């Protein structure tokens, strides 16, 4: 029983992380039809911003050494700035292209960012230690002990989700963003400023990426120039399985993928454990074979005939 509780919390924690990531992808997809292959690299850069640019193996914390509140704000600000600059310099010019072209653009951006990191910080992984207290355990009950960070991730996710929902439902810009996500041209014809709405989506997406970079680095303790790629893949999978174009779908997809991933880790026999990710993908493919449009249906997913 205790083992089950720990697994559940673990599943919720991983699911929350993937939900946040899928949201970051989903926000940009719904407004711009962009699958952002650079999202993982935004997270990577958020992580590398913590340390002094050098190729030393043991990293010297720069921003990472500041007071927690300042550090969090600084990292989030840096990633948001990166996202917004990416929009204005890169994505804005290909806005009229097909989603496929925009995908390659983001892939190019992501790859370039990765190699810029290598250029500045070197290609070897580095150790980083932030919020060491969070990696400790907390005793929930007699037999149940979980990592504090797992609870933090779940809490942070839900705070952000609620904030996002309130923003989208209650604020003027939020409603405009929902309208633009559904029918961009019509929204513009009613006077909604397309550029601002998209820039705002990048701000939100970048903000989520910034927070995730802090959570991710706290958990893994390692910085690696390619670290954003595998997690970004999971975000994509979550978006696809949840239903593309739907933010609710992104969250549902994120939790689904997280839960499946943790459950598989728990039940897979020893030899196959390394292939856990492959099993997740196979399961996802099976689900998609049965329901190709994903779990939550939106207008975006359906074709206009």
């Amino acid at each position: 029983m205790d083992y089950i509780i720990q697994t559940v919390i673990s599943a919720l924690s991983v699911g929350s992380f993937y939900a946040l990531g899928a949201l970051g992808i989903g926000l940009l997809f719904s407004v711009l039809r962009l699958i952002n292959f650079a999202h993982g690299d935004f997270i990577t850069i958020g992580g590398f911003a913590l340390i002094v640019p050098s190729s030393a193996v043991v990293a010297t914390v720069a921003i990472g050494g500041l007071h927690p509140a300042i550090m969090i704000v600084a990292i989030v600000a840096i990633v948001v700035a990166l996202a917004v600059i990416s929009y204005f310099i890169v994505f804005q010019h290909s806005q009229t292209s097909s989603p496929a072209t925009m995908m390659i653009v983001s892939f190019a951006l992501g790859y370039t960012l990765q190699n810029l990191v290598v250029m500045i910080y070197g290609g070897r992984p580095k150790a980083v230690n932030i919020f060491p207290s969070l990696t400790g355990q907390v005793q929930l009950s007699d037999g149940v002990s979980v990592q504090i960070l797992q609870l933090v991730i779940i809490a942070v996710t839900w705070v952000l989700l609620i904030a996002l929902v309130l923003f989208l439902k209650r604020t003027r810009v939020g409603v405009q963003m929902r309208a633009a996500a559904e029918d961009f041209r019509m929204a513009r014809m009613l006077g909604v400023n397309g550029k601002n709405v998209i820039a705002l989506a990048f701000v939100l997406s970048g903000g989520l990426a910034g927070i995730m970079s802090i959570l991710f680095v706290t958990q893994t303790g390692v910085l690696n120039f390619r670290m954003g790629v595998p997690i970004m893949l999971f975000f994509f999978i979550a978006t696809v399985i949840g239903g593309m174009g739907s933010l609710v779908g992104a969250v549902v997809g994120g939790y689904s993928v997280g839960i499946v991933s943790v459950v598989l880790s728990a039940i897979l026999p020893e030899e196959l454990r390394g292939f856990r990710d492959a099993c997740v993908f196979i399961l996802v493919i099976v689900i998609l074979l049965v329901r190709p449009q994903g779990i939550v249906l939106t207008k975006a997913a359906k074709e206009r005939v």
Partner: protein
Amino acid sequence: MLLEVKDITVHYSRLPALREVSVTVNEGEIVCIVGPNGAGKSTTLLAISGVLNPTHGEILFDGDKINGMSAEAVARSGISQVPEGRHVFTTLNVEENLRIGTSIRKDRENIEKDFKHILEIFPVLAERRKQAAGKLSGGEQQMLVIGRALLTNPRIMTIDEPSLGLAPNLVDRVYETLIDLRRSRGLTLLIVEQSSERALKAADRLYVLRSGQMQLEGKAADLRDGQKVRQAYFGFEEGSADDGKVAF
């Protein structure tokens, strides 16, 4: 002249969809553009809205050039468009849809007053205020998009095929509402219609567009017998040797 479209040519890639088309709309008028499918009527409205850019010609609104402006900027100048196919935001509820219309306005008090007024004009919208717009019937959606466009406080409203997909009695009501709006608010209207009968009944002035070119222009009163309109619409003279043949 409130709106003046001067000899615009609009291309879709290399295909000319409109060739030197001119339309004028005076303040307080109801002007209709009729024509068969593919004539370029929607293209004309899209060029006015700023969604399409004319390759030649000019569009003047109150004397100022608006061709080349973005769609948002055109909406901001006081032209509101209700495009073909209604385009409600299905994931937003009725109230949110209406409020999008107020995006360009800053005068909060007047916005609230207008909002209440729209709900009075369209009581069915007040009833369904919190319902998702996607669940409304066709006629209700048409009312919604007109109300939404009105909330931008436009000086001129362009409407593309208000009768599309609606039962005739609903279309009657839509037109009644539009004519009423002209009367009560002095709203100027530019309507694209496929049915020349309806257009002749509702409009002050009429334009007939065919194959991207303007064929006929005149006061509705002069064209009421329909003969000249039919000729321009189909492209042949009644009673001539071509009468009865399909026009291409």
